[in-house]
């Protein structure tokens, strides 16, 4: 399966999540997390922290999209980066034979 298909499926998951459920999130033991009006105090913040805090305070949906995209982009970038580093150390990163 190509990376494009994976990304398309992930986006579909996110759209489904948006459409059907924006107030529930389960955790161990099935505890429920409800919405809260927590606002971050921005008085001592600057730079990226200020931008994140403003985004968090003003638009939770946009914050969620940014979080998801940042984690996806960073995860992909780091995967390629560490792959190169492991190759440099001489670790074989290709197909392997299976042994039980």
């Amino acid at each position, binding site marked *: 399966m190509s990376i494009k298909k994976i990304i398309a499926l992930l986006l579909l998951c996110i759209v489904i*999540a948006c459409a059907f459920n924006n107030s529930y*999130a389960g955790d*161990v*033991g099935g505890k429920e997390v409800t919405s809260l009006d927590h606002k971050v105090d921005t008085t001592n913040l600057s730079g990226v922290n200020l931008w994140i805090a403003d985004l*968090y305070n003003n638009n939770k949906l946009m914050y969620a999209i940014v979080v998801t995209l940042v984690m996806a982009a960073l995860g992909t970038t780091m995967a390629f980066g560490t792959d190169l580093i492991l190759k440099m150390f001489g670790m074989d990163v290709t197909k392997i034979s299976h042994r*039980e």
Partner: protein
Amino acid sequence: MNVFNINLPVVGVQFNILILVLIGFCVGVIAGFFGEGGGWFVTPALNIFGFPMAYAIGTCLSNIFGQSIGATKRHQRMGNIDWKLGLISVTVSIVGFEIGSQVVLALEKTGNAGNIIRWCYVVFLSGLSCFMFYDYFVLQKRQLNDENEIPGTPVEDIQPCRSKIAERLYIIKLPPMISFPISQIKAVSLWIIIAIFLCTGFCSGLLGIGGGFIIMPTLIYLIGLPTIIAVGTSLITVLFSSAYGCFIYAVNGRVELVAAVILLIGASIGVQIGATAVKYIKGYGIRLLFAIMIAFAALSVITEQFYKMTGKSFFQTMAEIILLGTALIITTIILSKLYIEIRKERGRY
């Protein structure tokens, strides 16, 4: 050490960046090696260091999402992923998950949900752990003696050590039949696959865990996948469920983005090392380490249950120490084994 402290704007706490990277690295190694998310370790770890529980869960899920992309890519490259089976597992598990969640909501109305679910968790983890130990120390030795100990048998001719349960399920010829060539399964009833993933999804929804913890042993013992294909394929479930969880928790404002990014930096390195270690450790070695890990996870839940029953904080501290200690020890074992095997491969021993 103050020089390494960073301000986490959403949670509003100071956190040592080295501890975050270390937690991320450990969970990355474990996730890449076992094909699971590692939320059982990261969530309590963040909580111990000052994150409120909901933020710990949300941040952990975001990290799992990012790291599982790297782990999936790596296992895909090593040919360990059966996408067909993985996508069926994701689709069917969602239905089972929703049923499990509804049961939890019904239990909550009785006011005793936490207690019942914790005991279910203990029974599930202990039972699975005992079965995996039995499988390792008794069944696989017997099976190897019976089938593969013919002198001169080429390695490629040795049949995979499938569980007896899986072989019995293959006998049921209820159409439509489906094949999974990557997993070396010639024909199995689609209904059996659906029933199995409905059950795993139900358990995930009931126990509130991501999926890798349940899916990986299910793929090995019920569907009969070779261990490393099971490790790679279970990551698909982890990837999709964590993507969903990451978004939902972020919409509710329960993700600390800065912490998640730093965790992911450590995890991305760890996950590549963990996934590479799979190459050097035999399938049954992976199963044994997994059995040890879930046995200690069960012990931690039992200790936590004692805390709930007695109110003594000693038990809570013990539960946390058991969890963190297990993760650190398992990570060290994987890294040591990888180092030794690489040295052996290069002929230095």
